[in-house]
């Protein structure tokens, strides 16, 4: 009963937040910029062209009506036309969103795969050299500017060692002469569906550096959170009891202690997913990754507001849904959450 009420309340709240986000994006993208019509009309427009654009964009209508139209078109997936390329934004998003999600999901997995075991290991051997090294690593990872870290990784692994590709999503031999069919837009999945293992490996190879860049910060945070949660749990009585029973240390750590740290781990998924979505703006231009982040950063200088607005909105809605799923999962796993 409480759980059902919690789920309902949480879902309503998310719906409200999505409305609010839409309104905020509308205000920033359509009301704050000085003259959207002049931007829409293209380079060096004359007065007549601007007037025409004003009518096309419906800028003379009262604000509530403009917002209503904006919200309806966003909800129906009609994101308008890019000022710069004149292409339909919805078509671009279909290609770019999967690319960014592929990167975000991979880096989130990577961050958890590095951060959680490192947190458990360092908590198990508090004060050892390994613990100190791990703490140092997490501090360095958190202070590293993402864009500079991306360049350093490129320099080391692509330029010096030459073991990983410098940039892009696929090798040119594949993307130009023998492209993958667009099925889901996730290269790893499409390669499997098309039954082309070499392409799968190539896509994975290209994914490593950008995913690692985006994983560094959340892995550092995940390690810290896991470590402190584990230290907290390891000092409790049921762990002492398990030790007294002579259970193997590995089973105590991963079986009894880590289970209690699942809550923070779920929070970390949300955190690193958000970081990956945010960081994609920086990382995708450096790795020439054709995703939403690069779409946005390419649109900044041309003041292509429809593109920035649509991308921001889509990514934010993804993020809100992700958080909703995480909160609901948490409430199901640990019913105490719903009672708070």
């Amino acid at each position, binding site marked *: 009963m409480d759980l059902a009420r919690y789920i309902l309340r949480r879902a309503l*709240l998310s719906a*409200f*937040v*999505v409305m*609010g*986000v839409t*309104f*905020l*994006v509308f205000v*920033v*993208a359509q009301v*704050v*910029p000085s003259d959207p019509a002049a931007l829409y009309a293209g380079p060096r427009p004359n007065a007549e062209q601007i007037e025409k654009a004003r009518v096309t964009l419906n800028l003379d209508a009262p604000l509530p009506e403009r917002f209503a139209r904006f919200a309806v078109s966003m909800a129906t997936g009609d994101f308008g036309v890019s000022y710069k390329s004149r292409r339909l934004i919805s078509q671009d998003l279909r290609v770019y969103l999967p690319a960014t999600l592929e990167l975000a999901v991979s880096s989130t997995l990577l961050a958890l795969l590095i951060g959680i075991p490192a947190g458990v290991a360092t908590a198990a051997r508090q004060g050892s050299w390994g613990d100190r090294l791990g703490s140092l690593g997490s*501090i*360095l990872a*958190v*202070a*590293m*500017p*993402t*864009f*500079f870290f991306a*360049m*350093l990784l*490129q*320099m080391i692994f692509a*330029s*010096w060692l030459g073991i990983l590709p410098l940039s892009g999503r696929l090798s040119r031999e594949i993307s130009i002469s023998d492209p993958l069919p667009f099925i889901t837009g996730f290269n790893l999945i499409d390669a499997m569906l098309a039954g082309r293992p070499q392409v799968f490996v190539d896509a994975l190879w290209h994914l490593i550096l950008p995913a690692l860049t985006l994983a560094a910060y959340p892995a550092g945070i995940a390690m810290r959170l896991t470590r402190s949660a584990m230290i*907290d749990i390891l*000092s*409790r*009585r049921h762990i002492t009891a398990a030790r007294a029973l002579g259970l193997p240390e590995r089973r105590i750590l991963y079986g009894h202690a880590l289970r209690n740290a699942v809550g923070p781990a779920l929070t970390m998924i949300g955190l690193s997913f*958000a*970081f990956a*979505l*945010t*960081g994609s*703006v*920086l990382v995708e231009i*450096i790795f020439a990754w054709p995703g939403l982040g690069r779409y*946005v*950063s390419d*649109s*900044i*200088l041309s*003041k292509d*507001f429809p593109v*920035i*607005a649509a*991308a*921001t909105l889509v*990514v*934010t809605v993804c*993020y*809100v849904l992700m*958080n909703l799923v995480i909160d609901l999962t948490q409430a199901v796993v640990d019913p105490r959450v719903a009672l708070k």
Partner: protein
Amino acid sequence: MSVLRRLGLGGSLGLAVILTFALLAVAAPLLAPYPGQGMGDPNVTAKLTPPSAEFWLGTDHLGRDLLSRVIYGTRVSMSAGLMIVAVSLLVGLPVGLLAGYFGGWVDEALMRVTDVFLAFPALLLAVLMAAALGPGLLNSIVAVSVTWWPWYARMARAEVLVLRGQPYVEAARLMGVSHPRILIRHILPGAARPLLVQAALDFGPALLTASALSFLGLGVLPPTADWGKMVDEGRKFFPDRWWVSTAPGVAIFLLALAFSVLGDALRGREGGKRDDPS
């Protein structure tokens, strides 16, 4: 020095690095080897020279001494970090105070607005804001602050919720002290302290976000030196002329690292006394 002993080795080192950068920012014209180039004068006879005795960190694509540029860039980075945190506090603290103190529909309304701002992946909202406002240091500070204040609003609210129930606040209410007076005289001092500590800890992240915006071309206007922008300028020559991006990149990293280490030292001292969790 008892302060240093309490901070430990890491915290003291962090503090030292921060003070060094602060000194560089204040005394840039005296300390930079080429103050003119630090402020933007081109020096076309020495384009992209590697680090040498003459130019310790090398020169950029306009031949400007990178050491001088990095020293001048300290001013922008330090002030951006400070301003973001200050502006966010000025907005977030009152919102949190009002929401927590009055509760009811005031609380509900203010916190739902806060939720909306928190729903965005922060940098994306900042990019959208900065793009709408146009480039420039002040605009980028505003853009980041828009994504930053909700955290302080939430924290302040949580503090007030605790303080509001304290007997001394109830006593003041019973004595007929007005709401504004209770808020400012009796609740603000208690609520502000943990927020100020948090704000100090947030310097590093604020600095990183501001430099990310300027890396994207949404920060200061040329020819002012700014670390994020310098890393971006050097990208064209990377990795062959690695020093152009590396000098400012390492500067951002060092300063953010120093704040983070100092923050850990401060926080660790606070969190030191904990009751037995079982």
